[in-house]
């Protein structure tokens, strides 16, 4: 029987419990609702919650421990020499047993022992499933029954149900905290393991990045050097190009939208620009690699410049296009937040519109604009798909936008996609890079949010 069937059965039981609980509460007072402490539906809900929640909790615990318990039982049943194998080999054997039990393809020839183990595995699993099914259902019925019996006139059903709902609300809101803790811990632990192999100073100040570790000592070109400066430089270069494209265009269009544009033009142009914000980054990446990069390469060739087909310029420009709506909508908000009185004062002194904008509105809105730009920078640094598809893979330490550079995010992707073993410095390096990425973007966000909040308080 499938777990999803079980859940559906449980839901059915819960609605039955709701119905019975409600009915019993009404019967107790023979239909006179005012004699009850709570409304009848709360008695129903109370019974339904008792019926469902313990069973579901049991289910969760059972499923999370089922795998390891069954596996250890199967391992105990294996012959002694197989049990003494090193853990990776043992895992391979177990994998084969599991595949054999589910009827998939097996990597080795099937012998007597293995067939036995697979049968044993399948048997244990079906026993465990049956036991889970029986246990969960009987718990649901038992708890629901007890809750049903406990219904009385004075029972504070509403308060209990509300307490449960409150608990759910509280735990939902803490999930955000747990996510952050999860990110920090998962990135930090692997990074610490990385820094045990490679000193922190080598990582942060090293000028050469070549993560391939040699398998044989005499291999060429796989030195395993983890100096991240070229990656930081590449990220910085591409971010800079993106900002050079996005800040003027985004800011000027925000100014035009907020100060000059008529209602019709605004209602037409704003959504179209916002379309740019909704396009997935993988589309931008494809656009950069297929259209923009060859365009720059051909243009460079006709000017006699050697432009790499994975130039930082192409990735940066397309990333800039992606960020335009981000900057323009953030700046639009802050420009609109500047009080009308300041504009009126400036016009009253005889300033033209552009003078008002340049000398009054922009200075007044500057903190908000800076905050928006900082948020945009943090987005550009963390952007992945555009650079994965359009920027290079080899770490070049250069400031020339026509050459190929690589970025932190590109390296994380190339290090982690594909075959990996979790102990090599190569894989762990990705987590160290992610730590750097996380810390930098977090700092940028904190500063930006702080500036924006300060600015908002100023005019409220």
């Amino acid at each position, binding site marked *: 029987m499938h777990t999803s069937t079980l859940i559906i059965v449980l839901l059915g039981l819960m609605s039955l419990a709701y119905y019975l609980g409600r009915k019993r509460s009404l019967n107790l007072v023979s239909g006179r609702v005012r004699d009850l402490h709570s409304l009848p539906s709360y008695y129903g809900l109370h019974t339904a919650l008792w019926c469902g929640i313990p069973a579901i909790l049991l289910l969760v615990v059972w499923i*999370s421990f089922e*795998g390891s318990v069954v596996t250890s039982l199967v391992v105990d049943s294996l012959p002694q020499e197989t049990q003494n194998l090193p853990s990776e080999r043992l895992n391979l054997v177990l994998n084969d047993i599991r595949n054999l039990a589910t009827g998939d393809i097996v990597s080795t020839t099937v012998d007597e022992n293995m067939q036995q183990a697979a049968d044993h595995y399948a048997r244990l699993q079906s026993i465990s499933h049956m036991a889970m099914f029986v246990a969960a259902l009987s718990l649901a019925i038992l708890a629901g029954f007890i809750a049903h019996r406990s219904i009385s006139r004075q029972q504070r059903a*509403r308060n209990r149900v*509300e307490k449960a*709902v*409150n608990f759910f*609300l509280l735990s*939902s*809101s*803490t999930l*955000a*905290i747990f*996510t952050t803790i999860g*990110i920090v811990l*998962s*990135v930090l632990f692997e990074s610490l393991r990385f820094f045990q192999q490679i000193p922190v100073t080598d990582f942060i100040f090293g000028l050469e990045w070549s993560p391939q570790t040699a398998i044989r000592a005499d291999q060429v070109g796989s030195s395993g050097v983890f100096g991240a400066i070229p990656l930081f430089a590449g990220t910085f270069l591409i971010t800079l190009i993106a900002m050079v494209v996005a800040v*003027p*265009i*985004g800011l*000027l*269009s925000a100014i*035009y939208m907020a100060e*000059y544009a008529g209602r019709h033009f605004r209602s037409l*142009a704003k959504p*179209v*620009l916002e*379309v740019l914000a*909704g396009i*997935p980054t*993988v*589309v*931008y*990446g*494809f656009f950069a*690699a*297929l259209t923009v990069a060859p365009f720059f390469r051909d243009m460079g060739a006709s000017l006699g410049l050697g432009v790499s087909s994975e130039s930082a310029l192409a990735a940066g420009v397309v990333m800039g296009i992606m960020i*335009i709506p981000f900057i323009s909508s953030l700046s639009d908000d802050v420009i609109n937040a500047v009080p009308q009185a300041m504009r009126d004062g400036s016009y009253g002194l005889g300033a*033209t*519109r*552009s003078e008002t904008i*340049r000398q009054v509105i922009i200075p007044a809105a500057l903190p908000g604009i800076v905050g928006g730009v900082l948020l945009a920078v943090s*987005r550009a640094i*963390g*952007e*992945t*798909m555009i650079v*994965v*598809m359009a920027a290079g893979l080899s770490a070049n330490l250069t400031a020339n936008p026509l050459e190929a550079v690589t970025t932190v*995010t590109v390296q*994380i*992707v190339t290090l*982690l*996609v594909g075959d990996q073993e979790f102990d090599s410095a190569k894989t762990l390096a*990705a*987590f160290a890079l*992610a730590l750097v990425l*996380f810390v930098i*973007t977090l700092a940028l*966000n904190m500063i930006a*949010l702080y500036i924006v909040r300060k600015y908002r308080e100023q005019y409220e």
Partner: protein
Amino acid sequence: MSRVEKGLARRYRQERNFKRLGLGAILLGLLFVSFLFISIFANGYTAFQQTFIKLDVFYDPEMIAPVGETDPDVLSAGNYGGLVKATMRELFPSVTNRRDKKKLYGLISTGAAFQIRERVMQDPSVIGQRESMWVPADDDVDMLIKGHIDLNLPESDRRIKDDQLSWIQGMQEDGRVEKRFNTTFFTAGDSREPELSGIKGAAVGSFFTLLICLAISFPVGVAAAVYLEEVAPKNRWTDLIEVNINNLAAVPSIVFGLLGLAVFINFFGLPRSVPLVGGLVLALMTLPTIIIASRAALKSVPPSIREAALGVGASPMQTITHHVLPLALPGMLTGTIIGMAQALGETAPLLMIGMVAFIVDIPGGAMDPSAVLPVQIYLWADSPERAFVERTSAAIMVLLAFLISMNLLAVWLRKKFERRW
């Protein structure tokens, strides 16, 4: 006064220039949008058609099975590849050289053999008979027919050689070559052969992933927003949660992928490249968006509603569930749809949890390995075959169509249910 007038012309000119600059910036932005769409569309629209070739297949009993055979095991073991080759040899009897024959066979997709097998399995009585059948052409032929192959190049640089060209022309004169609507693109999973590949596998994978994502992020996001906005006391702890949510909204998506890799795959031991893990990671990623939008929706419900409900004796929780939540729901749904659109287009975190595997089968559930649409786009964009370029663009068009309709739905919802008090 005269000093003012002297500078006036210059100031007006500056004013005009500034205004033009602003307009220019907007037009540049619009130009980028249209350029992007035109470039994708121009590359992609041809993928909705596919070249087919008509073959006169003789269902040779010697190659398949004796006439009257109905056992599916025997039927499926027939030499259908050989049958296609024999049909091609029959069509061009003049080709005898081994190397030329190989080139000849290359005109037809490897999918032709499967198509013929399907036909025989369906109706074993065709064995021993002759029948014409439209089979997909190889992707290189398809590209040639669609005009993507430059015939001015020297023969050695071309994927289609000169004698292949003459054979194709011969078939075209016989009316054996035709472009038809490409149904494979919408009904097949991924494939190494462009003409046999489709987006259904990825689309179904995206569907399961979004379903998991929605099932988790919507209730949790709404609950968190209700707690922070309606229930929680204002103290350090709630401030911390709030700052935390704002920061999570700006954490690079790839970091969420690493979280998923470390927690769900390495710690909990969930399998790689399944929609369940993808949905979990995307749920964590879209949660801040949904919480922020839901809080804004709750904020816009006027306090008078709450006071009225409390005044007639509703408990705080009844006030929320009976009065505030229904009024805030449209705003919350709008935020959720926008969050889902974001999740649908997200690629980077899914690369981290192994959703880049090459998967042919169409997933049947949230625990089957699968790809998702944006990852499929990424994979095809990396493939060297020319035919995958148009398929990538076509897949992008499908993805954008989904995203735009989701966004339109959000806009419609906001327009229809938005209330101002």
